[in-house]
């Protein structure tokens, strides 16, 4: 029983990363109809930034947790203004291609400077050790990640659902023309929302740094899994993306624990689930109507 709980906990922690990345993808997609391939690259930049800040400037984890999302968010806003914005008027595939190219560039820039080997990042001292849950112990850092991510998702949900800004963003997502007709400047919110999505990716990267190998390729494979996650959840649905993220994390962790003879299972289960969802509900589990793609 305690083993099962432990695996479940691990799955939720793994799912937290999917959820953060899928959440960023979903808000960006909602506002701009852009699927950001470079999301994984920004995640990688978040982790690498934290590593470089610590190794070369001695900036601690907590500061990096604030600095990197802010810096990447600003970078994302500049990117949106400079390029994404112009391409968004065309077929969405062009932005997909553009951000794909950007991914290759960012990866190789980091690779040529720091090589492909993984760099270690120490867990911050305050979060080392374990928490005793009675039935099992759990690393404090993972508990922190899970709590932090859940709080963040609730906060985003609250902002979108309960505040004026959120109302505008949701309205602009669903009926841009009508929202504009009410005299609301939709364009004003596009850039901040894009920056926010990128900042979430950067945040996920910083959180991942002490737990996962920091290397230039860490984001690329992850983003493909996240794409499958948002296809499962329904990219148009923010709640669906987050829920699918946690769900896939759970399924992967259980697969890893109980089918450990078949490592292929935990790697590929997400794609199998995606295939099943496509058969059963092509629009995604929580995608009510098909979002224009």
């Amino acid at each position: 029983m305690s083993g099962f709980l432990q695996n479940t906990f691990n799955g939720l922690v793994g799912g937290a990363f999917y959820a953060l990345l899928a959440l960023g993808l979903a808000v960006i997609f909602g506002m701009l109809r852009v699927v950001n391939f470079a999301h994984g690259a920004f995640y990688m930049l978040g982790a690498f930034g934290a590593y470089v800040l610590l190794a070369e400037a001695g900036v601690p984890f907590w500061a990096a947790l604030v600095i990197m999302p802010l810096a990447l968010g600003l970078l994302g806003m500049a990117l949106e203004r400079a390029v994404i914005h112009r391409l968004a008027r065309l077929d969405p595939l062009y932005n997909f291609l553009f951000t794909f190219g950007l991914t290759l560039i960012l990866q190789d820039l980091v690779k040529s400077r720091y090589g492909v080997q993984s760099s270690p990042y120490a867990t911050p001292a305050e979060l080392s050790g374990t928490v005793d849950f009675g039935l099992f112990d759990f690393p404090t850092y993972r508990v922190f990640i899970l709590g932090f991510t859940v709080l963040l998702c609730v906060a985003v949900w609250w902002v979108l659902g309960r505040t004026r800004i959120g109302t505008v963003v949701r309205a602009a997502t669903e009926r841009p023309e009508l929202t504009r007709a009410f005299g609301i400047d939709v364009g004003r919110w596009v850039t901040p929302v894009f920056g926010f999505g990128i900042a979430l990716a950067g945040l996920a990267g910083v959180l991942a740094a002490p737990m996962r190998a920091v290397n230039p390729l860490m984001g690329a494979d992850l983003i493909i899994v996240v794409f499958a996650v948002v296809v499962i959840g329904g990219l148009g649905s923010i709640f669906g993306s987050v829920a699918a993220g946690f769900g896939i994390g759970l399924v992967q962790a259980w697969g890893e624990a109980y089918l450990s003879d078949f490592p292929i299972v935990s790697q590929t289960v997400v794609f199998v689930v995606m295939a099943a969802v496509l058969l059963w509900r092509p629009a995604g589990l929580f995608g009510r109507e098909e979002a224009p793609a």
Partner: protein
Amino acid sequence: MSTSSEPGLRAPQPPTGPAPGSAVDTPAGQAARPAPPSGLLTVARAPGWVRYALLAAGLLAALWLPNGLYPAVAVDILCWALFAVSVDLLLGFTGLMSFGHAAFWGTSAYVTGLVAIHAGLPFPLAVLAGALAAALLAVPIGYLAVKRTGIYFAMVTLAFAQLVYYVANEWRSVTQGENGLQGVPREFFGLDLTDDYYFYYAVLPIVLLGLAAAWRIVHSPFGRVLVGIRDNPARARALGYPVHRYKLTAFVLSGFLAGLGGGLFAVGHRFVSLDVLHWTTSGKAVIVVVLGGIGTLWGGVLGAALVVRLEDWLSFSGFEAIGLVTGGIFVLVVLLFRRGIWGTVAHWALRRQGLRRR
């Protein structure tokens, strides 16, 4: 940018209304959109002598190629040309951007390699086996993927290609994992084809056959229906065409052609590594098509020649970060050169002939 300027991909949308091509075909908004003329159809409207001159020039260039380049690079160009054309068949003529075509290219490379090593068949038969395996794999993937369109189609195909990659990576007893399949023979009825120069001329007829098949598909009634589906799926369905089945057929045919290229690639390199299944390979195929010109068919051949030649030159001159250049090409082409080479030339020719108004 005028509406007619971007063949294949859809023209810029006004900010309102549902974008076209949603999977659960949203009815409104995709009513009467003028079909963008594809570069190929443009050339098809050129005078006969222009077309024959272009064909002759292309064939001559193909015959001359290994004399002007390293033969090994020339072989790579042939394989990639086939790969690009197979992607354009979907992207340009069916309106589906497959971002996972490495699955077919790579599967065929592995199957070709295994058949060549273990059965010792002449290489064209091994390649045929590989291409058939790729087409077979395209059936389930295509069946699921055509349920979505647009950007979702790209994500779904990308995800399935990654699944194939993981399976190949884990299935070490067959694929040799990261070591790759080594020593793929170039058996051909006892002829000595170890020299890349002669091998090129053995490969050329197969590639030309593949390209001719692609041309034939596009210019058949079937191909016309595909273009109709690309431009207005709702109307195609209303006219009674089984849209999903047409898309799936196009997907499988495209997978076969990609497999043909991948199998030849395996025999050409006498080695198959996991790279053939990697997502960067899928992406490179798409950018080769965009560079050449979406919906132009032969543009992909030009794009393949340019990209393969450039990458060879870069790796030869000891440049490490090839992704920087490939990514740079991606970004520049998407930002500044969306019509691609062939599309741009066709566009100029059209303007000069005053054929713009149909």
